[in-house]
C-alpha cells in the first residue's frame, strides 16, 4: 500500500477540539498553583512560581489523606469482592440457564438495571442505619450487591462461550464443582474480570450519591464527598478549591495515563455486550 497518507484536515480539527476537553483541566492545574491575587489578575496565565501553599492548606483543611485512604479502601475491596463473587454467581446461572429457577434468577438480577436508585435511596438508609452499616464496609457491601445486576449480565454472556467439555473432564477426574470454577473457569475469565474490575473501580471511586446517603461519620468520607462538604468553606478562595480538586482527580488521571489502553478497551467491552 506504500506510505500511509494521513488525513490532516481531520487531524487538525480533532486537535482543536481536544482543546475543549483539556481546557477545564488546564484551568484547574494552573490555578491550583497560583495565589488569589494572580488568579484575579488573569485566570489563564501560568503561575509566576510553583508554590505548593494551596496544596498544603487543602491537605490540612480537608484531611486529604484520610479521604484518600477511604476512597482506596472502598474501591479496592469493592473491586476484589465484586470480581470474586459476581463471577461465581454468573457461572452458576450460565451453566443452568436451561432450568427455570436459574433463568428466573438471571432476569431477576438483570432487570434491576432499570430500577433507578432514588426508589431505593430512602428505605435503604433506614435499613442500613438499623443494622449499623452506615460506614465504609456497608458502602462496599452495597456496591458488590448492586453490581450484580450488570455484572451477571456481562459474565453470563462470556461464560456461555466457554465449552463445557473441559469442566466435565475435570469432574470425571474427581474435581468438585467449586474446584472447577476456581481452577479452570475463573482463570479463563481474566479478560472479562479485567473489564468488570475497571468498570467497578471507576464507579466506586467516582460515585457521589451512595456515599452521600450512607456515610454518616465525617471520618468515613470519600474524596468526592469531601469536595462537596468543603465547597462552602473554600468560599471564594478558588485556588485552594482547585488544589483540592486536583488532588482528588489525580489518582485516577495517573492510573489512566498508565493503563489507558486497558481502561478504554475495558469500558468498550462492557458497553457493547
Amino acid at each position: 500500500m506504500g506510505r500511509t497518507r494521513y488525513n490532516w484536515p481531520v487531524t487538525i480539527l480533532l486537535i482543536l477540539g481536544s482543546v475543549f476537553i483539556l481546557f477545564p483541566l488546564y484551568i484547574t492545574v494552573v490555578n491550583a498553583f497560583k495565589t488569589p491575587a494572580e488568579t484575579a489578575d488573569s485566570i489563564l496565565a501560568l503561575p509566576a512560581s510553583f508554590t505548593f501553599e494551596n496544596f498544603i492548606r487543602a491537605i490540612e483543611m480537608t484531611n486529604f489523606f484520610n479521604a484518600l485512604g477511604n476512597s482506596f479502601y472502598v474501591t479496592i475491596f469493592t473491586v476484589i469482592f465484586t470480581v470474586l463473587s459476581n463471577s461465581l454467581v454468573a457461572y452458576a446461572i450460565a451453566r443452568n440457564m436451561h432450568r427455570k429457577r436459574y433463568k428466573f434468577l438471571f432476569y431477576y438480577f438483570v432487570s434491576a438495571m432499570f430500577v433507578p436508585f432514588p426508589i431505593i435511596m430512602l428505605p435503604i438508609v433506614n435499613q442500613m442505619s438499623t443494622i449499623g452499616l452506615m460506614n465504609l464496609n456497608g458502602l462496599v457491601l452495597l456496591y458488590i450487591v448492586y453490581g450484580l445486576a450488570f455484572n451477571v449480565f456481562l459474565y453470563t454472556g462470556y461464560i456461555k462461550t466457554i465449552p463445557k467439555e473441559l469442566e466435565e473432564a475435570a469432574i470425571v477426574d474427581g474435581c468438585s464443582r467449586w474446584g472447577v470454577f476456581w481452577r479452570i473457569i475463573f482463570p479463563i475469565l481474566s479478560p472479562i474480570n479485567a473489564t468488570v474490575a475497571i468498570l467497578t473501580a471507576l464507579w466506586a471511586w467516582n460515585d457521589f450519591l451512595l456515599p452521600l446517603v450512607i456515610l454518616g461519620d465525617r471520618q468515613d468520607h470519600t474524596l468526592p464527598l469531601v469536595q462537596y462538604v468543603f465547597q462552602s468553606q473554600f468560599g471564594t478562595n478558588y485556588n485552594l478549591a482547585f488544589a483540592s480538586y486536583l488532588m482528588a482527580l489525580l489518582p485516577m488521571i495517573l492510573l489512566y495515563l498508565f493503563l489507558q489502553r486497558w481502561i478504554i478497551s475495558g469500558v468498550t467491552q462492557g458497553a457493547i455486550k
Partner: protein
Amino acid sequence: MTNMSDSLTNNAQRQERDNARSGPRRAGWLKKKPSPYALMVLPALILFFSFHTLPVLQGVFFSFTNYRGFGEWDFVGFQNYINIFQDGRVYNAYGFTFQFAIVSTVLVNIISLIIALGLNAKIKFHKTLRAVYFMPNILSILIVGFIFNFIFAVFIPGIAETIGLTSLTTSILGSRDLAWVAVVIMAVWQAAAFNTILYLAGLATIDRDLYEASSLDGANKWQEFWKITFPLIAPFFTINMVLAMKNFLMVFDHVVAMTGGGPGRATQSISLLIYEDGFAGGQFALQSANAVIYFIIIVVISVFQIRILQKREVQM
C-alpha cells in the same frame, strides 16, 4: 467392584441427570445435599433481595402511607399519588429533568458521532487523541461540575467584561431561564467520551471495502454516511440513545455541583427533589410515591426507545 473413577463418573452423571430433570423429583431438592450451584447463588440471592428488592418493596409500601422517615404512620391509600400530581415542585422537577435529558441526549449523540467519525479516519496521533477524548469518562462528575461552576460563574463573566460583551457579564448560573444550559454543556462535555468510544467500536466493525465500492459507484461522502455508515452502526445508535437518556434522566451530581438545583428550584432534577424533600423535608412517603412514578417512567421510556429504534434498524 467399582473402582474410584467409575463411581465418580456415576456420581457426576447422576448429578447431571438430576440437574437436567425437573418435576416430581425436584421436591427432594432441599432434603438432599444442596447442589453446589445452589450454594453458589444462594448468598447472593439473599443479599440482593435484602439490599435491593426489599428497599424497593418498602418504597412502594410506604408510598401508600404518611410515613415521615421515622415514628408512627398510617395508610393513606393513593393520597400521595394524588398529591404528586398537584405539586408544582414535582412538575417543575419533571420539566427540568426532561428538558435537560432530551437536549443532552441529542447533543451528546451528534457530537460523539462526529468525534468518532474523526477518530476513525486515517489521522495522525490517533492513540493520543483517542485517549484525550475519552478522558472525561474517568473523572468524577461532581468535581468536574465544580470546575465548570467556576468557568460559568467566574471565568466567562470575567472574559465577557474584558471584551465588552455585556450580555454575558452576569453568570448564566444565576439565571432562571439559562442555568439549565450550563448544566447541559457540562453534561455533554462529560458524557460524549463514553458515547464516542461506543460509536468508535461500531465504526470498527464496518468493512472498508464497502467504502471503496461506493466510491467507485460515485457516491459522495454525505451519501456514503447515510447509505452505508449510519445503517451499519444503527445498533450502536440504539444503545447510545437508550443509555444516554436513562443516565440523564437520573441526573444528580451535575446539578448538585453546578447549581445546587437553583436559582430557586429552576434546575432541581427529580433525583435531587427526592433526595432533598425525602430526607430533609420529612416527605418520605410523598417522595416514595414520586420515586415509584419515576421508576415506571424510566422503564416505559427505555422499552419504548428500544422498540422504536430497533424497528428503524430493521427497516434500514
